[in-house]
């Protein structure tokens, strides 16, 4: 019992600290400023990529060899174009597909001529046509992997619960308290005893999805899925849709008629000119805050970690290694906490919004409120 645990712990430690291995393999071109190079590396890491890069090595001639898995590129450009991203040779070459030429520029695909010329406007933005890109990128791969992992994990847990008379076994012992916590302290506490059940599947899914993706972001796979604003936007849009499609009459009344019968209509008009637009804006601000929070937290964590690793290359002495190791070890531990905390906050606030949307005033309560208003 003791030994496997130690092994698992060591494995986890190696996985978490593996970030370090990444930067050390980055290309070290002479003559280029170290600081800008590190900056570029971090920026590249934060972006989505058409190539699942595992590591890269530099040979004697200073040429970088990338080791990894090329991912399929799917473009819609007057018809479906599917090809492997290895055709781009990491942006160095122009890919030719059915007589069309495409080039990678800062991880984005542009349509070019045979030589791969990219034209720029005054602000140095490329003016080339961008075909619709439905590629299976690194983030998409990680989301699919996480989705399948969740599907496999929880369906097998459900099976083991059915078999063992609802007694948790194995991984169930770890996940049962978490699921119960989400049910009791997030769903029931915010949505209420009566209606929480219809929201539970979403809350559990979104919690574990975000948590697992955050944790994958700390592994040396070098993925940054929840730190991608498109991913968090999609999650927030789902929350927005569920909130508003399950909204009760009272929820909409609260937005368009917040004062209710407590005030005559001629008094309301003046207040509502200001109040109703604010309430309507609030509908959009809530999910917007949700998406910015997750995106910014994860991006900030990745930037801090990568910068600390970059210290090694800036110091270029024996100080850098231990310093960078100590700092990034401490920050990694905090990031493990943040990964859980952000998943919790996202789920918590989603449940809070669902609670607002599904609340129904019972009549006794309403009278109480009226009495209170009259008293004021």
């Amino acid at each position, binding site marked *: 019992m003791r030994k496997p645990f130690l092994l698992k712990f060591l494995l986890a430690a190696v996985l978490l600290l593996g970030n370090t291995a990444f930067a050390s393999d980055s290309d070290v071109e002479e003559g280029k400023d170290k600081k800008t190079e590190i900056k570029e590396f971090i920026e590249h890491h934060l972006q989505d990529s058409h190539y699942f890069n595992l590591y890269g090595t530099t040979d004697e001639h200073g040429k970088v060899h990338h080791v990894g898995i090329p991912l399929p590129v799917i473009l819609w450009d007057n018809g479906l174009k599917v090809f492997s991203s290895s055709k781009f040779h990491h942006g160095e070459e122009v890919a030719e597909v059915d007589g069309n030429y495409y080039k990678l520029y800062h991880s984005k695909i542009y349509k070019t001529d045979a030589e791969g010329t990219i034209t720029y406007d005054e602000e140095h933005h490329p003016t080339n046509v961008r075909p619709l890109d439905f590629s299976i990128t690194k983030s998409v791969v990680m989301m699919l992997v996480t989705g399948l992992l969740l599907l496999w994990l929880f369906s097998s847990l459900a099976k083991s619960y059915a078999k063992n008379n609802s007694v948790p076994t194995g991984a169930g012992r770890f996940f049962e308290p978490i699921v119960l916590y989400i049910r009791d*302290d997030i769903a029931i*506490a915010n949505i209420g005893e009566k209606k929480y059940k219809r929201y539970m599947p979403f809350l559990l899914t979104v919690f574990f999805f975000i948590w697992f993706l955050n944790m994958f972001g700390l592994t040396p796979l070098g993925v940054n899925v929840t730190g991608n604003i498109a991913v968090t936007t999609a999650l927030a849009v789902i929350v927005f849709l569920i909130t508003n499609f399950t909204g009760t009459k009272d929820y909409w009344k609260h937005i368009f008629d917040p004062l209710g019968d407590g005030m005559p209509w001629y008094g309301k008009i003046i207040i509502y000119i200001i109040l109703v637009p604010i309430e309507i804006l609030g509908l959009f601000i809530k999910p917007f*805050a949700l998406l*910015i*929070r997750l995106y*910014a*937290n994860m991006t*900030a964590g990745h930037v801090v970690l990568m910068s600390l690793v970059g210290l090694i290359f800036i110091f270029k002495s024996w100080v850098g290694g231990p310093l960078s190791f100590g700092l990034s070890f401490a920050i990694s531990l905090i990031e493990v906490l943040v990964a859980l*905390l952000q998943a*919790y*906050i996202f789920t*918590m*606030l989603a449940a*809070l919004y669902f609670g607002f949307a599904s609340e129904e005033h019972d009549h006794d309560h309403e009278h109480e409120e009226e009495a209170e208003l009259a008293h004021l």
Partner: protein
Amino acid sequence: MEIPSVVGAGLAVIGAGIGIGMIGGKAMEAIARQPEAYGKIQTAMLIAAALIEGIGFAAIFAG
């Protein structure tokens, strides 16, 4: 003279930091006074802190 937007972002983040600090401190006091309400206080604290944090990040991105 033009003040760079980064200064404004920094000021906003200082405000958010003070706010979160106050929330944490007050939550500690509340827990000390009523240790049995620990769970509820912690939840409310995290929600309030998360809301303020959002403002801080919005300021960073605006700056």
